[in-house]
């Protein structure tokens, strides 16, 4: 092993889980570029993993299986061991770790949503949008991953005016009026996009408006968007 003792401690604490959020995110990003560090983390995980045997079982909610089954049906029927898939998974892993790392720098809002059945296998699965005020000042980065069924909003250089909230909207002709995706800065776990067709999710315009604290009172944007952008596919 060629990593420093400090890095090995960091790897150990990563595996144990005691790193604080920024340390954890930093290490998650580093391990993607540093195979020795990655290996050290895996070794520590392997050392500690037998402890899980002793953890007593707890019954999960009964409705969980149908949700999982729907997820794998939507995302999977493809050849196993396919090189492109492996590459794509690597890029997803890298993207996710970077998103986690960025979340620490900027604070992040993740809206988990259940996208409908995935679109065609060949269609791009990851999308990104930069919601800009003008060309020189990116403000929010929106990342959508249809496979992971996740939408992440990352404020790059934006702070809501005092006493106001930023709210994210999805806008598409097929949807009629803009639909709220939640207030940025809250944890709107209840926000579900299950009603949206992945094709709409991929093709829609995303916009941020300034709203009263907690978001628009009537479910409609209170003013014109301050940041707007469209998703573009991220090539694997």
């Amino acid at each position, binding site marked *: 092993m060629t990593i420093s003792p400090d890095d090995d401690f960091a790897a150990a604490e990563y595996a144990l889980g005691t790193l604080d959020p920024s340390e954890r995110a930093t290490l998650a990003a580093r391990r993607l570029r540093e195979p020795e560090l990655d290996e050290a983390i895996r070794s520590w995980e392997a050392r500690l*993993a*037998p402890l899980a*045997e002793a953890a007593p079982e*707890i019954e999960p909610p009964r409705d969980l*299986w149908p949700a*999982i089954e729907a997820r794998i049906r939507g995302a999977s029927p493809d050849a196993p061991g396919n090189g492109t898939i492996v590459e794509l998974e690597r890029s997803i892993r890298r993207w996710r770790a970077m998103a986690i790392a960025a979340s620490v720098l900027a604070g992040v809002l993740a809206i988990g949503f259940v996208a409908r059945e995935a679109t065609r296998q060949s269609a791009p699965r990851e999308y990104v949008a930069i919601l800009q005020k003008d060309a020189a000042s990116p403000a929010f980065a929106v990342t959508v991953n249809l496979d992971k069924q996740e939408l992440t909003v990352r404020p790059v250089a934006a702070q809501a005016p005092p006493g106001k909230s930023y709210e994210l909207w999805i806008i598409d002709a097929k949807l009629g009026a803009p639909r709220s995706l939640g207030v940025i800065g809250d944890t709107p776990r209840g926000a579900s996009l299950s009603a949206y067709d992945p094709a709409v999710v991929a093709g829609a315009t995303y916009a941020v408006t300034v709203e009263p604290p907690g978001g628009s009172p009537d479910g409609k944007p209170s003013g014109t968007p301050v940041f707007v952008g469209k998703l573009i596919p991220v090539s694997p």
Partner: protein
Amino acid sequence: MTIRGGAPGGRAPTGAGDDLSNLLSRIATRDASAFAALYKQTNAKLYGVVARILTRGDAAADALQEVYVRIWEKAGEFDPLKGSPLAWMATIARNRALDEVRRVRPVSLEDQPEGFEPAAEEIDPLAARERSEGLSALVDCLKALDEEKRAIVLLAYYRGSSREALAKRFGRPVPTIKTWLHRSLAQLRDCLAS
């Protein structure tokens, strides 16, 4: 569902992990019935891992869903030479739960509602009656730690306790906890290697 010939070959399953190993190789070929069987056998175990770290029920359920999707995607990467199937799955589960609980967010998941504690009992692997070879070796090494230091490692593992939470619980400054963790982990590493 298509069953293709790409199942990882050459694996000679051994020991108690037999069934799960076989299921994982079938899952790697996109065998949905194997996945259903694996879920049935392991969901309470993995929920036990996740729900002690993410004590908010909805967060734990969301995390478990992600864990199984990941197992479905990654089954082909399972290597029986590097550990048991359950250890592999539990590592995925813990990592997912830890990523969630250690994410910077406006409302901390650690601010759990009062009185919600899915499993308040402390887990003592030293008292486990049935132990794999791996757990036996680890338990022997854990026994060599002071009681307090052992408790800290176990709380971090099973509860996902942060250094701050451990400092509060044991009435010690955070740097002390960090030093203890480093010493304990180094001791475990050396003990396991011997």
